[in-house]
């Protein structure tokens, strides 16, 4: 691994010397970690907006990155017309937010417009990793002399964007990282300098590109960095970046993940969100300001706070149960939020019992209890509930719940054991 090129005149020494005891591996892994987020297949829900290949490449093109001039089709007939317009062989590519499209048969070559139509018909009928293919990208085929990798990620440990390149493109970069990490060059970019041409030349040289490609490669790398920064991407990837037989560089596949928290300044990108590819209940939860992730178990959970919600799932598992979801109702636990949360939890037919775990801090437990009772009155759940309220006025809160014939618990362990028994139908 080469040292990061992050020395800059505008950088004062860090507040305290960083702890270096064997940390190189960690910062490397941390870059790899963020990288994986690029496999759109691996990320959904929460804070990331994954863009389709064709959307990512259109954005890249605005930053001077050469990409094939393809178009999107939703019918086989449209695919034929696009292929006819492009002339010559084309590649038909499924536009689905999963990784490994090629291996699954979602990317195929077609020599003629008629063949493109037939191929598109096959691909449009496919399901890739459970998701139906609704769109295909028809790109002119390019000749391939070499495939390289170019990407940018946010490195959490360094607090910077790290740009990476490898002579081994066209495969999952993590495979390269695991097999031959020396083939990846990384540059941790100083945010006040940005990615400079000399950084890019260093990357090009390190991955063994001939000198003639230094300039076009640098333009692409700097364009990709700007695309990331100006669109608030947490990942931007060109894989492969192809050297054609004609000696040009072309970004054949592209990927972008945009930070949800920055969408307020990117209304154009917000419109690209593909709601068809999201879990409808996760979408509904987001609209209510709730954070919900559906899981495969049968014990519904409603908790205030993300860390406590995870800990509650974990303790259910510890006592032999399986959580049906992650759900953080945030602060307050008002009746309206609890009602929305209950509806979402109970929309999952697998749910056999529900555990509500609320730490009433500044909000008093008796208020939370009243909110829960009002919500249950409205939703009329058919499965048993265990409620644990801890904090200010907890005795009063628990009394209100007991009077309404709800199972209560004092400790988290007790609550978990009770709900696991109820879900198993043994109590």
């Amino acid at each position: 691994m080469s040292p990061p090129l992050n020395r800059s005149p505008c950088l004062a020494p860090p507040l305290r010397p960083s702890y270096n005891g064997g940390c190189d591996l960690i910062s490397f892994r941390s870059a790899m970690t963020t990288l994986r987020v690029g496999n759109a297949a691996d990320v959904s829900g929460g804070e990331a907006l994954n863009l389709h290949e064709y959307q990512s490449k259109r954005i890249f093109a605005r930053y001077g990155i050469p990409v094939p001039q393809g178009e999107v089709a939703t019918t086989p007939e449209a695919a034929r017309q696009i292929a006819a317009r492009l002339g010559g062989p084309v590649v038909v590519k499924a536009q689905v937010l999963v990784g490994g499209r090629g291996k699954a048969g979602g990317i195929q070559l077609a020599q003629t417009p008629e063949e493109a139509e037939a191929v598109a018909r096959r691909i449009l009928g496919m399901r890739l990793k459970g998701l139906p293919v609704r769109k295909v990208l028809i790109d002119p085929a390019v000749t391939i002399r070499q495939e390289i990798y170019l990407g940018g990620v946010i490195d959490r440990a360094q607090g910077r964007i790290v740009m990476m390149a490898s002579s081994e493109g066209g495969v999952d970069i993590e495979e390269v990282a695991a097999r031959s990490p020396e083939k990846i060059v990384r540059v941790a970019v100083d945010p006040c300098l940005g990615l400079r041409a000399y950084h890019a030349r260093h990357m090009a040289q390190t991955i063994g590109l001939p000198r003639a490609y230094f300039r076009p490669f640098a333009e692409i790398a700097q364009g990709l960095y700007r695309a990331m920064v100006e669109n608030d991407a947490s990942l931007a990837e060109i894989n492969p970046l192809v050297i054609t037989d004609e000696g040009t560089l072309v970004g054949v596949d592209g990927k972008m993940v945009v930070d949800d928290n920055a969408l307020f300044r990117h209304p154009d990108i917000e419109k690209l969100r593909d709601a068809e590819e999201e879990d409808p209940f996760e979408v509904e939860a987001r609209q209510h300001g709730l954070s919900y992730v559906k899981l495969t178990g049968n014990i519904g959970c409603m908790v205030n706070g993300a860390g406590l919600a995870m800990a509650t799932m974990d303790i259910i598992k510890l006592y032999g149960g399986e959580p049906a979801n992650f759900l953080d109702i945030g602060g307050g636990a008002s009746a309206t939020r609890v009602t929305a949360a209950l509806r979402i939890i109970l929309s999952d037919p697998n749910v056999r019992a529900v555990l509500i775990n609320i730490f009433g801090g500044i909000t008093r437990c008796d208020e939370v209890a009243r909110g829960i009772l009002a919500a249950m009155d409205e939703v009329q759940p058919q499965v048993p509930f265990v409620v644990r309220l801890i904090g200010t006025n907890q005795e009063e809160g628990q009394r209100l719940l007991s009077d309404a014939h709800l199972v209560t618990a004092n400790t988290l362990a007790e609550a978990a054991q009770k709900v696991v028994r109820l879900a198993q139908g043994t109590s």
Partner: protein
Amino acid sequence: MSILVDSNTRVVVQGITGREGRFHTRQMLDYGTRVVAGVTPGKGGQEVEGVPVFDTVHEAVARTDANTSIIYVPARFAPEAILEAADAGIRLIVCITEGIPTLDMITVRHYLRQVGARLIGPNCPGVITPGESKVGIMPGHIHRPGPVGIVSRSGTLTYEAVYALTQRGIGQSTVVGIGGDPIVGTTFLDVLRMFQDDPQTEVVVLIGEIGGTEEERAAMYIRDEMSKPVVAFIAGQTAPPGKRMGHAGAIIAGGTGTAAEKIAALEAAGAHIARHPEEIADLVATLLGR
């Protein structure tokens, strides 16, 4: 002794005229925190809960000698609020705000390091030294002074641990919520160093969760340089890969950032691992001989 905040802490509240800012200013005053100023651009000259409001942090510092800032400003304005505090000479900035764009935090963190200001958060409950000063949104009354230092990426999970300790008569030196975002101003490692050097702290509790590798970095410090015992709990053992669990930073990506890896690293470093939140207090009590 304690770390970060104490009875000499003089707080300026940025965003004091907003709903959250006003509410928590009252809460902090009730706890005994010395809230000396508030800032909301355009609202200088007002008072909130008896605290004078200024238009800029510079003015607030000049008039009141505030030395610590707490920020309740909405996400799109919070990065600027942090930078303004740092520029005004504030050296401890606590940012409660959730949802700040990650790339903004890269620039902010970079600048703070240049000027030597410390940021706690963002997306955190703040810092409390029980009995002295509360600079945050945590329920103050569940805390009591004592020998346990706590550092955590979570809010309510930390309150659980504090509550369980206090119920057993075990108090806390300082409780620090470092925040749930991918990029935060202060890491586990930074806070562990402070607790190691703090004479009041006898036992340290580290509450981590899935995502990133800061717990692993902390483990190396615990192994190599820490003499005080550490009790650790990691949330998210049942979290599926690739899903963000509420916090922007809580995601298992590419097979790393898992709870199992973090627990293994901390255990190998000699930390005492709690299997669930209530075990934290049990383990601390044993270590303190209670």
